[in-house]
């Protein structure tokens, strides 16, 4: 941690007073629940919540051996992959275009970033309306091509619905970062290439894309985190995890088991596993940050 040379000396109580509110909030609403999760993951509660019994790793064993958990894991992974590919591809294309224009650049930026302000729950609802079986515009458009759309019955279509809504929402986030990345590429580099006779496409694939790869990697992790946590609201407003678990992600399952199923031990074990997963993602992120600093 970098050290500031100049500090207030002879104040021993003041820093603690300043830190107290944050430490209190973090201790009560972060460390306490997190520790509770960790503890409950090793216990089983009886049906009335009166007694509990230490069971070691049995909760983890139970979770990790249940096909339902791995199904949710697979759904989450596929969901992440589709959203990352879709939202990053679209964002890169639009960011490259927005970086080129001289006129109206600010207007385009506003028109392409506002979906960031839309809640995931609302994004789900907007697309649910577009795909409504009775009056949805896209449902009717697809019918012209002979596609019968009913996301309440078709598992693939249900997943497509939440994926499209998530891509629509997450694109703007990626767009901001890609555009910032593009604007940091030194113009002299592209000029030199152009003088050497490289065309716009050559410049893009030879210079721009490699220089954007750290941004792309960062966004890949952030998009996965988005799918892990934020899409709960999208799912809860559209498909409710169905049909047949086709859109039941890890967090959706955690919520169902913990609050609907009242399985305290099992949901705590899932919490701990999720913490590990996020820990791994954060670690990867930090390794990447270190490397970027070394540039």
């Amino acid at each position: 941690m970098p050290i500031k040379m100049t500090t207030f000396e002879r104040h021993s109580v003041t820093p603690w007073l300043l830190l107290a509110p944050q430490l209190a909030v973090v201790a009560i609403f972060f460390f306490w629940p997190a520790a509770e999760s960790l503890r409950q993951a090793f216990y089983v509660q009886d049906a009335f919540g009166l007694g509990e019994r230490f069971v070691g790793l049995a909760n983890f064993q139970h979770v990790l051996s249940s096909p339902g958990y791995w199904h949710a894991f697979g759904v989450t992974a596929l969901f992440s992959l589709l959203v990352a590919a879709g939202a990053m591809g679209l964002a890169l294309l639009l960011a490259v275009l927005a970086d080129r224009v001289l006129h109206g650049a600010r207007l385009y930026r506003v028109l392409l970033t506002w979906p960031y302000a839309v809640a995931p729950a609302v994004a789900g609802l907007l697309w649910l309306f577009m795909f409504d079986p009775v009056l949805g515009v896209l449902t009717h458009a697809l019918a012209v091509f002979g596609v019968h759309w009913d996301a309440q019955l078709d598992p693939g279509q249900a997943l497509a619905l939440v994926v499209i809504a998530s891509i629509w929402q997450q694109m703007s986030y990626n767009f901001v970062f890609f555009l910032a990345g593009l604007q940091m590429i030194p113009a002299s580099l592209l000029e030199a290439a152009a003088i050497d006779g490289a065309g716009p496409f050559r410049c893009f694939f030879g210079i721009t894309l490699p220089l954007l790869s750290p941004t792309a990697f960062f966004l890949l992790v952030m998009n996965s985190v988005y799918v892990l946590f934020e899409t709960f609201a999208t799912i809860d407003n559209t498909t409710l995890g169905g049909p047949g678990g086709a859109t039941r992600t890890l967090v959706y399952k955690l919520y169902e088991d913990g609050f609907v199923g009242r399985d305290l031990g099992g949901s705590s074990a899932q919490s701990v596993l999720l913490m590990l997963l996020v820990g791994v993602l954060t670690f990867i992120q930090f390794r990447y940050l270190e490397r970027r600093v070394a540039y």
Partner: protein
Amino acid sequence: MRYRRPGLDGLTHLLLIIGAVIFGLPLWLALTASTHSAADLQSGIAPLWFGDQGLVNYWQLLSQPMPGLGVSALRLLGNSLVMALGIALGKIAISLLAAYAIVFFRFPCRTLCFWLIFVTLMLPVEVRIVPTYGVVARFGLIDTYAGMILPLIASATATFLLRQCFLSLPSELFEAARLDGAGPLRFLKDFVLPLSRTNLAALFVIMFIYGWNQYLWPLLAANSPDHATAVISLKNLVQSTDTLPPWQLATAMTLLTVLPPVVVIVAMQRFFVRGLTDAEK
């Protein structure tokens, strides 16, 4: 160097316009649908242009209790505003003080304190949702604004960002303030705060949107409709009815819910971009 080829330029604008239209389409369709009557909507495909029932629909939402919920949209939007402002201002306030202590003071366990706060960066409330509910219930904070706000401000993003910002202030500034005889509070008020204004504004934009758009936690923490937020009320309109959803009301409520954060993002575009890119560094 950017290529100036008229054909390519035209194509660029065309593609950007197509992109903007596609991204605007869902909101446009919601806007037009919210101005039609229920009977109009049920007679076929969602309309692409406005109807004449807009005032009726919005007036019904704002003045009458919402079907299935029992409170008006005005109340829901008010709750959302309280929660979003509480989260944004609360988080900034406690983070500002903590970051100030960590950067400008030496005290035992300083590094430990920093790491204790830093760990919270990794784990959003969704991960520890069940025990968090238990803790909040134990304090009797279910169905209170405090209970809706506090678990969501227990995270280090703002502390981390402000620490970076304070570290980048020149140390000459500090020496000058000391020569003037400024104590810790005066230094914070007269030097640090004015110089961090842009960062604070950027942080506010991001945190306000984060707070307004929260879903899972307020769904659990606000048991009664009296504390429900606009975002969580939407599901009631669409999912709870056995018959066709009242889309004219659902789309109108969607528009009302989306409006405040979108206005914030458009009006404070500069701070938004800065806040977003800073917060993740």
